[in-house]
């Protein structure tokens, strides 16, 4: 559920520096340059990038532009391949048994530690190819008048992925609108020290 319907969950950010005027005309191109790339036909563990707000399959903004009134809206798509641990365990065991049999035939008693490591990697790669990436989409809404940006996620890992990719794309930095940040907006930077020195209140 996101910005369009149902219950929304999001984190608020603000751009920390002035946005150069020339950037507004480049928004779509920059999004395209750092757009999502499919990994269905590879063995990559994950892929992420921007897609259209309306359609997670549209990474070229064919149907609709990201500009909506005074807002820019797009989504961060993150595809992840995850081999279930039980599946991995079984297939590693199969590979190990096979290797032990071969070792015995060759007159060796053990499978070496290095060989086991190799097997682990081979099994992982083999299973990755056979596992379909799981797509996830997180909406982004950018108010161009206030410089405030909403990201449709509250999980720290996804947030940090978004922050980095946003900065890479637009060369702009984001700060989360946390209680302290919002308090400084109210008080002014001159009173930052007062805020720093606050003793926690004991209400009882």
């Amino acid at each position: 559920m996101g910005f369009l319907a149902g219950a929304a969950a999001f984190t608020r950010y603000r751009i920390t520096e002035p946005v150069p005027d020339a950037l507004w005309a480049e928004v779509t191109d920059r999004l395209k340059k750092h757009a999502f790339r499919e990994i269905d036909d590879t063995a990559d563990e994950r892929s992420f990038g921007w897609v259209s707000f309306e359609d997670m399959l549209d990474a070229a903004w064919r149907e609709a532009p990201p500009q909506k009134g005074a807002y820019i809206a797009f989504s961060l798509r993150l595809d992840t391949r995850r081999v279930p641990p039980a599946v991995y365990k079984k297939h590693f065991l199969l590979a190990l048994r096979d290797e032990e049999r071969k070792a015995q035939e060759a007159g060796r008693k053990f499978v070496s530690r290095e060989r086991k490591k190799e097997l682990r990697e081979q099994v992982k790669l083999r299973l990755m190819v056979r596992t379909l990436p799981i797509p996830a989409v997180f909406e982004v809404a950018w108010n161009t008048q206030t410089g405030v940006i909403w990201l449709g996620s509250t999980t720290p890992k996804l947030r940090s992925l978004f922050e980095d990719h946003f900065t890479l794309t637009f060369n702009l930095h984001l700060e989360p609108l946390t209680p302290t940040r919002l308090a400084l907006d109210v008080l002014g930077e001159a009173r930052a020290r007062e805020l720093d020195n606050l003793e926690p209140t004991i209400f009882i």
Partner: protein
Amino acid sequence: MEDAYIGQAQDAALGREFLTWLWFKSEEKNGMFPGPDNLDFALYVEQRVSVQGGEGESLETATVSGRMSELREARLGLTTGKKVSRALLRLERDAEAWQVTVKAEDFSLSGFKTPKVETKPEEGDDPDALFLERIFLLEKALGFLDHVFAGFVRLRLSPQWAEECAAIRVWLAKS
């Protein structure tokens, strides 16, 4: 536990004091707060509240929920020194109502419900109308919330905070 970023502990402390104060204030004022436009809006803490106290290994959280409940167990938590770490807020202005869960430590928002928006676009409608309407409603509620927070911050750093704390103590003693 080490801070994930500089100022994390300060964020958490300020956020928890705010939500704790907000619970008190909304009961003291029967939910009525002046909005950024000086017209009143209503804000209630209801249905689900988490309170947290202690730190490190002895950090303790109690989450209490109930549709029409007075959340007595959570109030009890406050009387042992815990503070509100997460709260479900209900906001109202005229016929419009919002619901949102606010997390104290970073003010992340979840379960954010706005007044109903007509979802079936009619011919000739701006294709972005639904998006713009929803964003407008979300921003409206956040405007109320930020306004209340601004009032809290000014009070928190003023000499009147001590009086407010005394009133909170009385409120807690009655709970």
